[in-house]
């Protein structure tokens, strides 16, 4: 029942209009009993910010006060408290539903790809950081010349780099033996508390494959995880108390506990296998030191105390050396599973799987064994007992450096002049040269050496050359022409350069045109490019006359590129028109589909 008889007041003091309050999908409607009054109200549920109500115990009438986002309050007086509470509950439910919805529309976006919010945010961030890119984006994507996807298609590197930064660093294993941290003991209540985190669980499973196997076997079939860990830690406690007699006794009673107290069978087996696989000539992958469960040690316990134990309970003790070595081996192997979850069982299974895989790889087939034996025999040969080997020799070829110099002289191509005439010329020329020298020796330096008018002329022309060069190149040879332009023109030129490059990139990539999409794209790009062209022309007009020549030189390559693009576009269009004309003319007999296709294109 979502209709109630209420009195609607806009403020507390208001007398209130009687009417019906209806709660519908997404909104609240109040229809007054008196059709003439204009206190009809429609409130959308998303707009309701909060609701207040009067308490039952108080002397106040049952009021419900709704405040909307514009801070207007609507007060409804109900007939009784039950109604009010019902209404309040419904409104609360509606509000709760409204909270979820705003999140959903944001995730649903247009465009063929399903872009996530993260991607969009990334794009906005990149745009914000690079104002040049932002300007290009505004110019092209907002005027619908290019679509978002096309714009970002060539800039994947910019987007990708950020996401790579976000990827997590792979964390290695701690070198501290967390699995063996001493528990906290409470002397008063005689309780020993072990702390267990997922890191510790991982370490325990990695270092003690027997425990892992036991977990997979026993949980959840035989006992719960909590029980499992309790038993495990009981075993640990027994170890730490060094009370091997008690350990033996408990092991005899409780078979699960015995698993934890025995030496690790799986580990021992692995070590044996590794040793068998070792190639004595080559590999130092494993040696007898790897079998650290059977190492002779000094009997030193974890906390440094010495240990004397009866021989029949020898299997119930464990030493520091074994633990340390196992821990070190696991740390060196590293974290080789990606399972990140808190679920203990999945961690155990993942580790077991990895071990299976590595065991399968390590298993040697017969062939592999044969190969290994053959290789061993080959490597074990002794060099000086072998027969002499005659390797085939390749001849040495050293190039004569004169080849290089002589090749530079060769192949000179010229029209051969008449040899005879040239020789005569040469002879004559030398003769005249000798005469000149004789002349100067007798005559001496000419006086005056240079006429004053000529000298003056030289000065004038030189000054002119230098000053014009200065105008063209600028006072400072390092200063470029761009710096002499006014700032707005300079920015405009640079912006045109980047935008024309962008347009040309997309234009040339859309050829050869095979679909209508590409066709429209090419058309749009061509329009944008003609726009740019006219803008360049306008800019050339607008600049001062002394800079105009240099500016047009600067702008010319852009215009040439645009011209080439226009030419290609027009040529392509003509070619298509010719083809379609030919196609429709030639295939007049019954190729309906082909004609239809041509017309569309």
């Amino acid at each position, binding site marked *: 029942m979502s209709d109630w008889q209420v009195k609607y007041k806009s403020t507390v003091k208001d007398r209130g209009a009687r009417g019906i309050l209806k709660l519908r999908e997404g909104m609240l409607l109040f229809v007054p009993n008196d059709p003439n009054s204009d206190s009809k109200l429609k409130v959308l549920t998303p707009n309701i910010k909060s609701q207040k109500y009067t308490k039952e115990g108080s002397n106040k009438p049952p009021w419900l006060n709704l405040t909307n986002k514009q801070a207007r309050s609507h007060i409804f007086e109900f007939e009784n408290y039950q109604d009010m509470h019902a209404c309040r509950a419904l409104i609360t439910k509606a509000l709760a539903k409204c909270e979820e919805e705003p999140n959903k529309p944001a995730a649903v976006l247009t465009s063929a790809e399903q872009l996530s919010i993260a991607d969009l945010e990334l794009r906005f961030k990149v745009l914000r950081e690079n104002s040049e890119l932002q300007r290009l984006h505004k110019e092209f994507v907002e005027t619908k010349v290019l679509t978002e996807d096309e714009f970002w298609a060539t800039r994947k590197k910019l987007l990708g780099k950020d996401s790579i930064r976000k990827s997590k660093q792979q964390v290695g294993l701690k070198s501290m033996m967390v699995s063996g941290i001493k528990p906290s003991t409470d002397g008063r209540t005689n309780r020993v508390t072990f702390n267990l985190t997922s890191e510790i669980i991982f370490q325990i499973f990695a270092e003690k494959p027997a425990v892992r196997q036991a977990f997979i076997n026993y949980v959840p079939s035989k006992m719960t995880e909590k029980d499992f860990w309790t038993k495990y830690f009981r075993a640990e406690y027994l170890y730490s108390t060094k009370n091997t007699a008690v350990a033996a006794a408990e092991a005899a009673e409780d078979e699960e506990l015995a698993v934890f107290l025995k030496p690790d069978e799986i580990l021992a087996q692995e070590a044996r296998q590794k040793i068998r696989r070792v190639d004595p000539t080559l590999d130092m992958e494993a040696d007898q030191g790897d079998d650290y469960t059977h190492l002779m040690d000094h009997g030193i316990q974890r906390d440094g105390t010495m240990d004397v134990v009866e021989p029949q309970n020898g299997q119930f003790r464990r030493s520091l050396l074994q633990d340390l070595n196992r821990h070190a081996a696991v740390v060196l192997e590293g974290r080789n599973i990606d399972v990140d979850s808190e679920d203990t069982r999945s961690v155990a299974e993942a580790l077991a799987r990895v071990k299976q895989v590595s065991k399968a790889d390590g298993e040697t087939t017969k062939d592999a064994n044969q190969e290994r034996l053959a290789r061993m025999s080959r490597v074990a040969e002794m060099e000086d007992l072998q027969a002499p080997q005659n390797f085939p020799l390749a001849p040495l070829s050293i190039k004569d450096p004169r080849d290089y110099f002589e090749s530079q002289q060769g192949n000179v191509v010229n029209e051969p002049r008449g040899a005879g005439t040239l020789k005569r010329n040469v002879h004559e020329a*030398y003769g005249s040269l000798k005469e000149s020298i004789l002349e100067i020796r007798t005559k001496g330096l000419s006086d005056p050496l240079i006429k004053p008018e000529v000298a003056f002329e030289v000065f004038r022309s030189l000054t002119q050359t*230098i000053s014009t060069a200065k105008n063209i190149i600028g006072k400072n040879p390092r200063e470029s022409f761009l710096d002499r332009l006014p700032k707005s023109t300079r920015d405009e030129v640079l912006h045109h350069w980047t935008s024309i490059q962008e347009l040309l990139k997309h234009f040339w990539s859309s050829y050869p045109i095979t679909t209508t999409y590409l066709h429209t794209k090419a058309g749009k790009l061509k329009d944008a490019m003609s726009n740019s062209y006219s803008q360049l022309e306008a800019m050339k007009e607008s600049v001062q006359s002394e800079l105009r020549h240099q500016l047009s030189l600067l702008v010319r390559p852009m215009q040439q590129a645009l011209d080439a693009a226009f030419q290609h576009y027009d040529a392509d269009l003509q070619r298509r028109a010719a083809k379609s004309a030919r196609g429709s003319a030639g295939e007049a007999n019954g190729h309906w589909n082909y004609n239809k296709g041509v017309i569309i294109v």
Partner: protein
Amino acid sequence: MASVASKLYSDDVSLLVLLLDTNPLFWDTTSTTFSQFLSHVLAFLNAVLGLNQLNQVVVIATGYSSCDYVYDSSLTSNVSSESRGARMPALFGSLLEKLEDFIGRDAELAEGDEHVDRIASSLLSGSLSMALCYIQRVFRSGHLHPQPRILCLQGSPDGPEQYVAVMNSIFSAQRLMVPIDSCYIGTQNSAFLQQASYITGGVHHAPKQLDGLFQFLTTIFATDLHTRGFVQLPKPVGVDFRASCFCHKKTIDMGYVCSVCLSIFCEHHKKCSTCGSVFGQSKLDAANASSSVNDRKRRAPDS
């Protein structure tokens, strides 16, 4: 004495190496005679020597088929023994003598040379190399030495067969930080000289009127390296950077470049003739054809 010398060594002491073009085929064709040209040049050398007591001048004659040192102002045996007429300053007596001898030798070499189908260019590469060797010797003589520069007075056109050698000399000059100034008095454009001045940081100028040559020389080319920081010298607006191909020695604008040694070819080759690297997939063909290619390349000078 050494301390006195060091006090006298100011910033503007210069060693000028002048490369004089004595190509008879060129001088035959110009309106200015060689004697007029020489008088301008000798007066210029005098002026340079007068600028600073410690200035030095070396003149290398660039002939048609050979080059040689003709004058060194640091030598004491410059005063000519014979004084045929007191008109000629005694300082240059030996220069003229040596120049005459050099031209005589050059003429003999030219007559013996059968290889006459060549553009009438002078041996710029040879004289540049000689200049650089002299400068290197000066560098090694001690830490007190004048600042060397090279002035190239050229009128003959470029010989594209000298492209590689000239470029090598230019890069050596760049390494030694020796600027190559060039004054081109011929009719066509010289790409080599423009590139040389551009790359080494020298000044290039091509004066149009040769009767004012002395004025050009003293205004532009007499300034030493230190003063060039304050003086505005004419800069060319553009430089002709065309190269000549390594196979035919033609000047080309577009060609093929070997990616290993950067040698330029005008047509497609299977193998680079400079470094021997093979182009493209035709390795097997190249192995077979390399012997024939080498034979082909070696024919010309021996014939």
